[in-house]
């Protein structure tokens, strides 16, 4: 068994993560109770409030399983406790993996490779992942009150063109650029020469094919429920394929 993985899966980390998540859950319960009571005081129907709780709980179940699959995918590189923490607080799978890769490269590794990781690199990667994602939190601490008050007091502008602004496309464009950088690098890496490696490109292609199948059923056949699993399942299938390809190659 890999010594690094045994260390990052120690019981002590499970305990720390459990304590942090307990704090977060208590925070959620306080917000829930306060809002429920405020709703009752404002004269809202208790049935509607209760229905909101039950429907939100059921609505969340499937996407939660998808996040759990993300924990499985991440746990092989960063251990279960840290993956559990990162996908439960602030993060999302896309962010975590990309940042872990960036941090690993900044430490001189070719990428997030389990067999090249040790606890020293792990703590640095963990710190980059943690601090790097706090932007939204700091913005909320300092600007949320001012921003929401401003939005509330401002009369709604009529959108005469009926078209969303560029902001709606900016995040998509940013992610297109992100994906292009990685896929382009995998294409370069696959060119036969010293140090070449075709595996990342093959795994990316398999993940894309599986995702295309999911997209077909979601977009063309209206199976919207699959949207909850498409990313995590595509990744896990492609990762399983990597094991088989490794045996063949």
């Amino acid at each position, binding site marked *: 068994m890999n010594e690094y993985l045994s260390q990052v899966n120690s019981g002590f980390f499970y305990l720390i993560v459990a304590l942090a998540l307990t704090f*977060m859950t208590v925070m*959620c319960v306080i917000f829930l109770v*306060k809002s429920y009571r405020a709703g009752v005081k404002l004269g809202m129907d208790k049935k509607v409030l209760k229905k909101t709780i039950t429907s939100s709980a059921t609505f969340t*179940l499937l996407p939660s399983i998808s996040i759990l699959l993300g924990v499985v995918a991440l746990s092989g590189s960063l251990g279960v406790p840290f993956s559990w923490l990162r996908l439960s607080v602030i993060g999302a799978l896309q962010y975590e993996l990309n940042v872990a890769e*960036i941090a690993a490269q900044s430490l001189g590794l070719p990428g997030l490779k389990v067999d090249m990781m040790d606890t020293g690199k792990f703590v640095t990667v963990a710190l980059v992942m943690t601090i790097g994602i*706090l932007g939204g939190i700091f913005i909320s601490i300092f600007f949320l009150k001012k*921003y929401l008050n401003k939005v509330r007091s401002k009369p709604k502008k009529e959108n005469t063109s009926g078209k969303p602004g560029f902001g709606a496309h900016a995040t998509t*464009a940013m992610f297109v650029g992100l994906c292009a950088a990685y896929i382009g690098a995998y294409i370069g890496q696959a060119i036969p020469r010293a140090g070449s490696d075709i595996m990342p490109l093959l795994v990316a292609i398999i993940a894309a094919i599986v995702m295309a199948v999911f997209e077909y059923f979601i977009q063309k056949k209206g199976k919207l429920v699959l949207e909850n699993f498409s990313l995590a399942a595509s990744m896990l299938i492609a990762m399983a394929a990597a094991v088989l390809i490794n045996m063949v190659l």
Partner: protein
Amino acid sequence: MENKEKFFTDFNNGLHRLGRVTLVAMVIILGTIPFVMSVYFNTPIDGAGFWAGFAKVIVVYFPVSVVEFLVYAPMLGVGGSYLSFITGNVTNMKIPVAMNAKDIAGTEVGTPEHEIISTISVATSAIVTTLVIVAGVILLVPLQPVLQNEALLPAFNNVVPALFGALGLKYFAKSPKIAVIPLLLISVLCIAVPSMISQTSILIIPSGGLALLIGFLLFKKGKI
């Protein structure tokens, strides 16, 4: 009506106070964990590696955080925003949950009723997610020897290509006109200069910037 407005303003001010305090506490808890790990392993954090990684991450993700904050906060309201930004999975979980709750309760964004419904839905969602993942993690513990088996090493070594293959298909299909040029340029660069292959953390900056520029030009011309 006036009383209702006053009650709601006081309630929101209370949520802002509570939200800020808990967010600061959470930042301290999260920020401390890597240092606790460092002490536990008796291994120092690589300062140069941290700053190099952090600088690249902040260039890419800080603008994304700002856009998400500006777009999502009005949809989520006070309580919903604090909870969503701390519990994460905003786009793929909290926004759909809040919008689903809005439809069920029949509330309008910006009203006190919507703020209450949004906070309740996001809090419930975060609690359920935590419970599901806790159950999953408990099940994962006995599977550790399997997950750490050497035979699975190629799978976990290729988790990043698996992510970007799947995400790439999704985003390229959504915006093929934006994708073509950055993809071609980066591919040609990595074929011509092999040392760039292991520098994706740097490549994402020009590639993201170029995609943004192309997206903006296409938007101005009304082509997206």
